[in-house]
């Protein structure tokens, strides 16, 4: 008994000391079975680099694929990836890459210069889509295999943004798998080079990733380069943010993309941690079908811009202050944190009286029903939107109603919304695009741009966009991006609304979620402290 009494305090001291040192948790970075992630949606379409167009595809690609180069999120410098070295000629028309020699696709076939050529040529043949835009669209000339692990990409014109784009969304599909699976490739089968293999992909529902046991070529931008800790990652889409929060609180998820209105509540909960990552890309904005009346009237578009109380949108529960009023077309993250005065000056501020004047100048007179009319026709605008944007569009409908514009809301499923945009079946919509670089605007708003579904064709604007992609100095490119945004604001080609964050909440035990320059996170290096 004596001995026991003597040992107990000693044991207690050792245990308490160990707990104090480790903060009460084990910090061993060990393998674990499953990481459960819940997003606002799981994405739609397919995961083929040629045809994938949903933004979530690029999130998954960071785990099932690799890029030739990577953008360091801290300083935006270009870092090695599947390419160990690269050279660019003086006018940025020829890029030569030296590839790693130890990389294999998930099907065991080697990654080589031939595979790079196969993928780039396949993307170029499609002549459409985000992959085509990233490859420089019509600028792309060809890819030449110099030897088994050296490849040269040539452009017809200067394309200075190529390295940025390579680090964003150009992953590599296995040529063997593409040939073998034909139409099924991208939907039933995805074979790439990344730390995880796609085991199951159910569009609009979930993706299940399983660790690639051969993976040893992780890029230096991550804390690890070899096998990931999680043997599997399940990423599920849940539309309602109350349900997503409930999934986290009930222990059914480890990491959750939450709604802005849940930020304060979860920050106050000691069990969880909230990480707000500014979204890279374009801001949430109103976009117009410029081919259709009455949207083709500049005064109508300017009136819409003046009718929107953007401070009100940010303050409302939808964003609960966890967002910023949008300044330009690009987000703060793409503009380096701040905008020059010229973009601030071009803002169309909330001014309903000015909106009314503009509409009256175009002959839209207030009718007895509170909706403006011209030649007996009401001022009605058809606004399409994806289901997830329902809480964003209702305030806009109410604000435009205040100045006599009737907004007919048409809610569509994500794929149907894409299709309606592409077919031009709308007057107005709401959206944003994810991506890095100043040239993100090009594919969306340049004449002939792959995602220019607005009928926008403006020579002045096209000139700015050309400069963004061809000027050899960063200063020139930045100024062109500023000028382009000022021009767009002055012509109300789009109306910036809100510059958002990606709000993620996670269990305190979750560590090292990685936020790339393109801000959808990567879960490759995530580990759990027990």
């Amino acid at each position, binding site marked *: 008994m004596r001995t026991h009494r003597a040992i107990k305090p000693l044991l207690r001291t050792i245990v308490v000391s160990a707990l104090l040192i480790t903060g009460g948790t084990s910090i061993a970075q060990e393998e674990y079975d499953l990481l459960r992630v819940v997003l606002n949606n799981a994405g739609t379409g397919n995961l083929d680099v040629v045809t994938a167009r949903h933004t979530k595809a690029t999130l998954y690609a960071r785990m099932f694929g690799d890029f030739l180069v990577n953008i360091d999120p801290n300083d935006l410098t270009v870092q090695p990836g599947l390419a160990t070295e690269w050279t660019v000629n003086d006018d940025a028309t020829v890029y030569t890459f030296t590839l790693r020699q130890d990389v294999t696709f998930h099907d065991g076939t080697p990654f080589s210069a031939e595979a790079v050529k196969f993928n780039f040529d396949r993307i170029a043949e499609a002549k459409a889509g985000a992959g085509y835009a990233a490859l420089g669209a019509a600028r792309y000339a060809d890819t030449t295999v110099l030897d088994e692990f050296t490849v040269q990409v040539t452009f017809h014109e200067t394309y200075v943004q190529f390295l940025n784009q390579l680090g964003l969304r150009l992953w590599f599909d296995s040529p063997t798998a593409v040939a073998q699976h034909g139409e099924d490739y991208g939907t039933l089968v995805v074979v790439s080079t990344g730390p995880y293999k796609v085991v199951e992909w159910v569009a609009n529902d979930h993706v299940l990733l399983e660790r690639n046991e051969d993976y040893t070529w992780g890029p230096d931008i991550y804390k690890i380069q070899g096998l990931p800790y999680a043997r599997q990652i399940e990423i599920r889409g849940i539309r309602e*943010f109350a349900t997503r929060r409930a999934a986290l609180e009930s222990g059914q998820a480890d990491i959750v993309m939450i709604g802005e209105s849940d930020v304060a509540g979860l920050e106050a909960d000691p069990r969880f941690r909230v990480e707000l990552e500014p979204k890279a890309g374009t801001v949430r904005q109103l976009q117009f079908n410029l081919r259709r009346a009455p949207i083709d009237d500049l005064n109508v578009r300017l009136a819409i811009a003046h009718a929107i*109380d953007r401070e009100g949108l940010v303050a409302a529960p939808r964003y609960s202050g966890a967002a910023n009023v949008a300044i330009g077309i690009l987000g703060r993250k793409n503009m380096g944190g701040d905008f020059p005065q010229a973009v601030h000056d071009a803002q169309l501020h909330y001014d309903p009286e000015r909106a009314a004047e503009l509409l009256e100048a175009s002959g839209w007179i207030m009718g007895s029903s509170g909706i403006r009319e011209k030649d007996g026709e009401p001022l009605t605008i058809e606004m399409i939107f994806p289901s997830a944007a329902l809480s964003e569009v209702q305030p806009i409908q109410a604000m435009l109603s205040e100045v006599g514009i009737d907004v007919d809301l048409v809610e569509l499923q994500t794929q149907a919304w894409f299709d309606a945009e592409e077919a031009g079946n709308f007057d107005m919509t709401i959206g944003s695009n994810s991506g890095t670089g100043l040239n993100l605007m090009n594919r969306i708003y340049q004449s002939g741009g792959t995602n220019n579904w607005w009928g926008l064709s403006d020579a002045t604007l096209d000139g700015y966009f050309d400069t963004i992609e061809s000027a050899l100095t960063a200063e020139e490119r930045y100024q062109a991006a500023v000028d382009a945004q000022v021009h767009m604001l002055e012509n109300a080609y789009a109306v910036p609304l809100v510059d958002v964050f990606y709000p993620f909440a996670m269990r305190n035990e979750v560590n090292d979620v990685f936020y790339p320059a393109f801000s959808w996170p990567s879960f490759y290096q995530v580990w759990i402290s027990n």
Partner: protein
Amino acid sequence: MSQPPLESTLHSSAIQSARVRVALALIKRFLRHRSATVGVTILLILIILAVAAPAIAPFDPLKQNLRQGLAPPSAEHPLGTDEFGRDILSRILYGARISLRVGVMVVLLSGTIGVLLGMVAGYYEGRIDTIISRAVDILLAFPSLLLAIAVITILGPSLINALFAIAIAQVPRYARVTRGVTLSQKQRDYVDAARALGGSPPRIMFIHLLPNVIGPVVVLASLGVATAILTTASLSFLGLGAQPPEPEWGAMLSTGRSYMRQAWWITLFPGLAIMITVLAINLFGDGLRDVLDPKT
């Protein structure tokens, strides 16, 4: 102009007074039915509130005030505000107009069609009965909500289309009940007498049969209003009924569900409104059934 014979006039006035006596007796029985009177009282209050909504609602139900979103119940907003800062009390008052109107419209539409089909099937029997009955069986095979969703998928989401969809889904109930009662009533002597006097089938159906068939239909209709209100709320909850910014109770529940954790009032009060209304109508319907059922 010839006068009706005295005997005939005396006979019809006797029938009239007998009918009045029966009606009074039924009303007395109904008023003695405690739960039915509670239901009617609540229903009357709801109807008064709905009719007077423009006069008594403290705010415009569509007026947004984003900076006052999710404000809890207070003196200014007794039931709080929703995510867009709209006054929930005002929206519930205006929502009563929508719900009650939809309920009544659905019953009128589905009841009219259903009774007509049921009477034709029951009166003529044979091939016509077979066709109508099989069509009714097919419609009954679908859950009414699923059928309504299918109809809205074709017509497109809106309150009016939801109303039609729910009405179509409710038609079989009326048709089946009416057919059964018609089959039984047409065996009665008064129908044979009307036929012997040369009455045409439409006259026999609408002048003689209808008053004797309508009793069970009225009970069904009273309960059908509640079903229609619930189904409309369900469709609006799914985004297939009332569209923004209409203050429909189901739509209010739907938009509020994302904020249930922070703002209980945003879903509680529309939910209560639905529950109280449906309960009141069901109490009324149950009472009506008890009063009209000769067995009770």
